[in-house]
């Protein structure tokens, strides 16, 4: 009985929070629309969100590409089909690993930082102070970060894929001597601009939207205490990572499965 009651309470709280987050999204989008003319604010946030995530993305991309090169080669060489190495590496990266891995790293690096920053701004009354200075925090603080998240994510995902393809080349060509022409041409023959590359970009856009939304909402709704902010930061990483992985399944099914 107690279990059912607590389940009900949890469900009510969940739905209430979901409603809050949609309301927040609406206000954030309106704020973003008003922030767009002041692009210098967005540039500032692109630095915090994009540039500071650049290094981890590039390094991860390189290693993932190299691992794909190794694993792909070991498997393909069994069928003496190592000429398809480039195709395997590129498809994995462009379709899945690029957007998903970049999104997970983005959630861990930029998403958590966003939540902590907004949560602290709220806890130290900075958002209230802005309101009292007749400045709407939605337009001044939330909006630019939202736009920056939407811009940064596809670029980061593309970077991860591109660096990964180079990493695969490094292993495939450098270590195993796969012909460089074969590596690139097998890729070009099998990877489609619309079906693969464009769908990957769409995926990363969706992920960027979701992560930025979750991160900003968690920060904005966090209790104004240090414990509240730290919990919200954890929740951002967990919730947005789950959303990315779940969303990836749905998007993949929609795009490639003809669902």
């Amino acid at each position: 009985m107690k279990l059912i009651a607590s389940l009900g309470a949890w469900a009510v709280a969940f739905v209430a929070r979901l409603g809050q987050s949609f309301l927040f999204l609406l206000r954030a989008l309106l704020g973003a629309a008003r922030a767009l003319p002041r692009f210098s604010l967005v540039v500032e946030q692109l630095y915090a969100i994009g540039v500071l995530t650049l290094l981890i993305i590039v390094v991860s991309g390189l290693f993932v590409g190299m691992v794909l090169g190794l694993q792909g080669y070991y498997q393909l060489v069994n069928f003496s089909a190592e000429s398809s190495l480039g195709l395997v590496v590129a498809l994995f990266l462009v379709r899945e690993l690029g957007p998903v891995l970049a999104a997970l790293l983005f959630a861990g690096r930029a998403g958590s930082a966003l939540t902590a920053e907004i949560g602290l701004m709220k806890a130290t009354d900075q958002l209230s102070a802005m309101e009292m200075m007749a400045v709407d925090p939605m337009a001044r603080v939330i909006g630019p970060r939202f736009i920056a998240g939407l811009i940064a994510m596809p670029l980061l995902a593309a970077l991860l894929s591109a660096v990964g393809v180079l990493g695969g080349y490094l292993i495939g060509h450098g270590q195993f001597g796969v012909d460089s022409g074969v590596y690139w041409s097998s890729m070009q023959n099998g990877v489609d601009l619309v079906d693969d590359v464009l769908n990957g970009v769409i995926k990363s856009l969706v992920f960027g939207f979701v992560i930025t939304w979750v991160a900003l909402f968690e920060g904005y709704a966090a209790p104004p205490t240090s414990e509240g902010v730290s919990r919200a930061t954890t929740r951002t990483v967990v919730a947005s990572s789950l959303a990315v992985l779940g969303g990836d399944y749905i998007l993949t099914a929609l795009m490639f499965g003809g669902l």
Partner: protein
Amino acid sequence: MQNKSIEIWVGIFIILGLAALTMLAVQVSNAGGATGDTFRINAHFDNIGGLTEKAPVMIGGVRVGRVGEIAIDKDSYRAVVGMDIDARYDNLPADTSASILTAGLLGAQFVGLQPGADDFYLEAGDRLEITQSAVQLESLISQFMFSQRQPEDSEEQ
């Protein structure tokens, strides 16, 4: 002011990101060669094996176009492969032959063209007369096994 360096970094970030996107589009995917004008030539094959649309058309390992359409000729029931050749290769001899080849043992299949010696050049809508169908691994293997077994059979007779 530190704003300046932030702007520079963001600029670098955007350029890098766009460069990566361009690389994915041009170097990784098949968008690279498809730019510009093409002209369509056809070739009839008995069997095209695993050839697919968008497969490359090569001369001596260089891509000159891609497969645009695969259909069946309603009268002869042979496969018709329409190839979109880059417009700049407009001096292919009319007696050029086409064969369906495989990259590696199990790799993707593509159309290879062997230029002839004719004085006339191929034009849009032309049909290649000399073609060689895809080599099918299964029939190769069965042929091989058949030829191995035949002497034994004759002995038994």
